[in-house]
């Protein structure tokens, strides 16, 4: 009887240790999975344009057929992040465009501080799924913009809408948020 009962006790302890090892592996794995969701999300958004991020680089300017029969309203929104005082607004708030044709518009920004600042504009398109159809060949958002104390200037955006834009999209909003670029312009 006694030999029989010490045996299960030892095996239970071993089984417990095995369970703990396996479960801890799951815990560590899931902690890693949380971080893995970050690149995963970026890839999915890059493919689908889910989060309204436009490609922040010069789009292919090859001419495409202009769809003059269709008019899409593009709205422009400018907002300032709370971390620095800026004046920032679009020159025109809305523009009726034909998909396939290039348009240029301007945003005006002025540094309200008495020292130089460097700004970075971050674009976002709504509805998010239109982002991949929003093509820019020139944009002040491609680079950081340096401003002297009190300086204000017009900044251009040249864009077109891909004619492949889904037909149910009639309005596209392009919004820029101005952030102070990290570590520069104090």
């Amino acid at each position, binding site marked *: 009887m006694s030999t029989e009962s010490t045996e299960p006790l030892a095996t*239970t302890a071993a089984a417990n240790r095995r369970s*703990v090892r396996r*479960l801890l592996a799951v*815990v560590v794995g*899931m902690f890693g999975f949380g971080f893995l969701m*970050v690149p995963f999300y970026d890839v999915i958004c890059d493919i689908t344009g889910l989060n309204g991020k436009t490609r922040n680089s010069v789009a292919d300017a090859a001419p495409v057929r202009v769809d003059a029969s269709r008019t899409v309203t593009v709205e422009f929104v400018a907002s300032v992040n709370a971390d620095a005082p800026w004046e920032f607004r679009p020159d025109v708030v809305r523009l009726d465009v034909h998909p396939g044709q290039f348009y240029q518009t301007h945003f005006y920004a002025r540094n309200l501080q008495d020292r130089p600042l460097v700004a*970075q504009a971050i674009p976002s398109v709504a509805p998010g*799924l239109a982002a991949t159809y929003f093509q820019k060949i020139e944009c002040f958002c491609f680079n950081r913009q340096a401003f002297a104390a009190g300086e204000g200037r017009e900044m251009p955006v040249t864009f077109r809408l891909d004619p492949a834009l889904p037909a149910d999209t009639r309005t596209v909003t392009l919004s820029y948020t101005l*952030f102070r670029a990290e570590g520069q312009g104090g």
Partner: protein
Amino acid sequence: MSATTAHDTHHDDHAAPRGLMRWLTTTNHKDIGTLYLLFSLTMFFVGGSFALVIRAELFQPGLQIVNPHFFNQMTTMHALVMIFGAVMPAFVGLANWLIPMMVGAPDMALPRMNNWSFWIMPFAFTLLLSTLFMDGGGPAGGWTLYPPLSLQTGAAFPFVILSIHMMGVSSVMGAINVIATILNMRAPGMTLMRMPLFVWTWLITAYLLIAVMPVLAGAVTMLLTDKYFGTSFFNAAGGGDPVMFQHIFWFFGHPEVYIMILPAFGIVSQIIPTFARKPLFGYASMVYATASIAFLSFIVWAHHMFTVGMPLAGELFFMYATMLIAVPTGVKVFNWVATMWRGSMTFETPMLFAIAFVVLFTIGGFSGLMLAIAPADFQYQDTYFVVAHFHYVLVPGAIFSIMAAAYYWLPKWTGHRYDEKLGRLHFWCSAIGVNVLFFPQHFLGLAGMPRRIPDYALQFTEFNMISSVGAFMFGFSQLIFLYVVIKCIRGGEPAGDRVWEGAHGLEWTLSSPPPHHSFQTPPEIKEAEAHS
């Protein structure tokens, strides 16, 4: 057998520390279960007092009692304290007390880790509650901690994050312990499909915990590095995306809501058969339904964020997947009703709470279905309708099941019967109070009153007044519960081993209160005795 017995006697022999040291150093599953339950009860009153501050402010429009910033701290802290401090520890406490007794084990599998996982909690919550006294106050951006708002928290921020990490570590250790106990410590003959349903639901809950608590830990760590170490996980200026936080958070958050309800399903599945004097209807389907709900909980998270701008296919997927959860949940409600069908029912306090659970949880489930309809959700998002929904599943859902469990097993734990008259009084005050409190919030939400605001438009006044009256009624009737518990601990009519005439299961074969080591000799479980 002699070796096991010798081993156990050895434990009983050595001088057990008394007083405070007994509780600090205990590795006994019953002591730790008691500590968890008392901690949970304390936090229930702390979180409840925060809720009463909220309801007092909302009694009439305008700002009367607190400033908006403090109001926001109250909504945030109420949620964090109730979720992580009241509901989750209460279930862990019940698991500690009951699982070893239900599977025929002497104690939990990892008793020292068990001690740790409890004693982290008081420190975590001292840390969390201390943030209310810091510069800039406690967290005020909602318990969901969405950036960039949550990153504007003042000095309290790192303390909040650390306390969430500590709660996570505690929950994960508790979950590992539960799984190890259930998988390795069952008595001979206690096959998986003979386990009581409370054990089954806790096994599945424990797997959910170890799968998602680390994800929450990751998400809050990213918040911390975004604020203090210059990373840009959620910062658009650096190429991050604040919406991504919502995805990661709700990947944790949705399984979390089932962590708070699956053990409740288990409790109710123990209590209803006892007082209907019939075996549980559809035992196997209950097990499979629980597992299905747990699986589905991983693929529905984005229904919390329908309005962030998802492609149509995404909205449809998350809408249908969410509605699918109603199927296994419906199976469960059907089984509870079928168990009561033609049973010889009596209505002692635990049964009253269990029946109220079935009815009121179902109401919460239905409003959940309404919220699952993506086009309708655009209207309901962030209104009081959402508040009414999740309070219906959490208060008369999770909390009522915990109350039911407390009344059901208190005689077993203490050896004394509780005061049945006061128990019923507590039930009726709670049941009426909770409906007066939360039912009008449905109407407020449908009329468009937003949640998490200290002030509101005049047309919402009447329903808010009713709701606040219900809140104070519900809140103060919990003092009856406190009195009943203290009275029952201090003495009362001897309970007897079986306590309830219709009770089945291994825990009722032990004395009341049970011996120090629950089952020194593993009991033998026969088919006929299983889950009846």
